[in-house]
């Protein structure tokens, strides 16, 4: 897919002073577009992640992306977008964690701790072995995200994944929640609990992988967790929870992409996005303390 038309339009508006001047750069327009996709999707999905207590899991899947990139370079994929290895390895990682959790009596945080450490060890070892083959500075981009490297192919992958995730998630939203409230009740109401479990972790995984370019492997899981956590603190209904989470994630994504460029700060986009999300979380906590302090 080519986004030339849209890019020229936005660059034109930026040139005319209607949008922040940084958007006169084509690469930043790409980054902004992906931020506008990532924000709502991760924010919406995040409400389920937080409710189903999968925060640590989604962090782990993000970290697995590092190993995915290493494997991609090893097998000769372009290091700017080793998608086959990224999707392949992260899906394998996620499904293996869930499969093992269903078949052992270890608590899921212990199990994820084990898988995460082993996966990181593997990724770090591979990357050091590969250090002679590639410019090690690309590691920074992989780890913390970069607005400079988002090309049309990345945008296409992201849009396709986001559209798929939204189409699957919306009709299943209630069922995904119900399965975590009471599996027996869910089954009586016709919810295939185990199957939906797997489906949900696959959703988290693909959307995480598609967002790695912008946010980076280390921090991508955080955008699934922090905006939803902030929304949970201040919302009083599911509607508020969902809409606020989307709003927080979108604001954080856009601010994290635009502010460093506008202010000429040498900060990676992932870092800036998560710092913005963290600030929103802090704000939400304060609002809660002020307005509902008496509830304890």
């Amino acid at each position, binding site marked *: 897919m080519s986004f030339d038309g849209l890019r020229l339009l936005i660059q034109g508006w930026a040139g005319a002073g209607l949008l922040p001047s940084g958007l006169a750069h084509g690469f930043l327009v790409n980054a902004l577009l992906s931020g506008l996709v990532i924000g709502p999707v991760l924010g919406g999905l995040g409400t389920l992640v937080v409710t189903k207590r999968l925060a640590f899991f989604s962090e782990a899947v993000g970290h697995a992306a590092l190993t995915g990139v290493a494997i991609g370079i090893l097998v000769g994929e372009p290091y700017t977008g080793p998608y086959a290895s990224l999707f392949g390895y992260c899906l394998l990682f996620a499904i293996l964690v869930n499969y093992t959790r269903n078949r052992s009596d270890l608590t899921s945080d212990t199990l994820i701790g084990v898988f995460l450490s082993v996966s990181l060890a593997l990724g770090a070892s591979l990357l050091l072995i590969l250090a002679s083959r590639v410019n090690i500075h690309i590691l920074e981009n992989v780890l913390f995200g970069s607005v400079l490297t988002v090309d049309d192919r990345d945008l296409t992958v992201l849009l396709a994944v986001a559209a798929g995730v939204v189409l699957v998630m919306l009709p299943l939203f209630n069922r995904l929640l119900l399965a975590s409230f009471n599996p027996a009740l869910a089954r009586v109401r016709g919810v295939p609990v185990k199957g939906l479990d797997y489906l949900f972790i696959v959703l988290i995984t693909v959307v995480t992988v598609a967002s790695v370019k912008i946010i980076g492997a280390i921090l991508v899981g955080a955008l699934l967790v922090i905006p939803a956590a902030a929304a949970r603190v201040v919302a009083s209904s*599911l509607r508020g929870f969902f809409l606020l989470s989307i709003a927080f994630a979108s604001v954080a994504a856009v601010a994290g992409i635009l502010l460093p460029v506008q202010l000429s700060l040498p900060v990676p986009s992932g870092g800036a996005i998560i710092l913005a999300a963290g600030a929103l979380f802090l704000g939400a906590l304060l609002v809660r303390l002020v307005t509902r302090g008496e509830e304890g």
Partner: protein
Amino acid sequence: MSGNTGGTPKGGPAILFDRVDLTLGRTVILDQVSLRVEPGAVHAVVGPNGGGKSSLIRALLGQAPHRGMVRLDWPGEAPGVTAYVPQAVEFDRGLPMTVEDFLAVLCQRRPAFLGPDRRIDYGAALERVGMAGKRRRRFGALSGGERQRVLLAQALIPAPDLVILDEPMTALDETGCTIFEELLADFRAAGTTVLWVEHDLAQVRRLATRVSGLNRRVLFDGPPPAMLSPDRVLDLFSAVPRRTTGNAGDARVVERAAL
């Protein structure tokens, strides 16, 4: 599970347990349990903790690996609506989810965050359990008894033909008990079959049409006044069943020897 709200009630199914065995590890939970629940009955199952009451429900819901047969005989061609009232739901008490949101999550396809489906009368269901005024209260902020009432309300959507109750009265206060009594009366009037696991024998004596005593095996089965005599009740709760398969240890020794 939905779409049966408009039609005339066709009545509940009969439930047949035929020589049901359930073993977890080396513990025998259910031992040759045979039981028939008549269509439209309010059939209570009583017994000591660990006597297999909840396991019987899990076997009925197809959620416990059991031997023997569990069958539902529906009066019509197609199975009707089954409702289940669990003892509790597992969720984060601080979750921003109102009572109405909770019912929406359970009962509708339309994502709950978009608001209630107007085709479903949540108000009426909440009215019947005396919770109409608390529609917009946070579900996690309700008392245990109020949450239990909401769990009863969800069982009314859509109108059920079979209701499975797992100790629904545990958290109920006096008003809650009255409401529960009215619901049971409504179920009986509609010909809905009710399978009701309960530990409160006084309530069972008052409200059930039939009662079975379960402690690994069915110890008695009949109309409550006759069945719940002091002697029988003492028997049911004092008998200590052998909880492990008697000669499992011996069998293992034999196996080892054979190897």
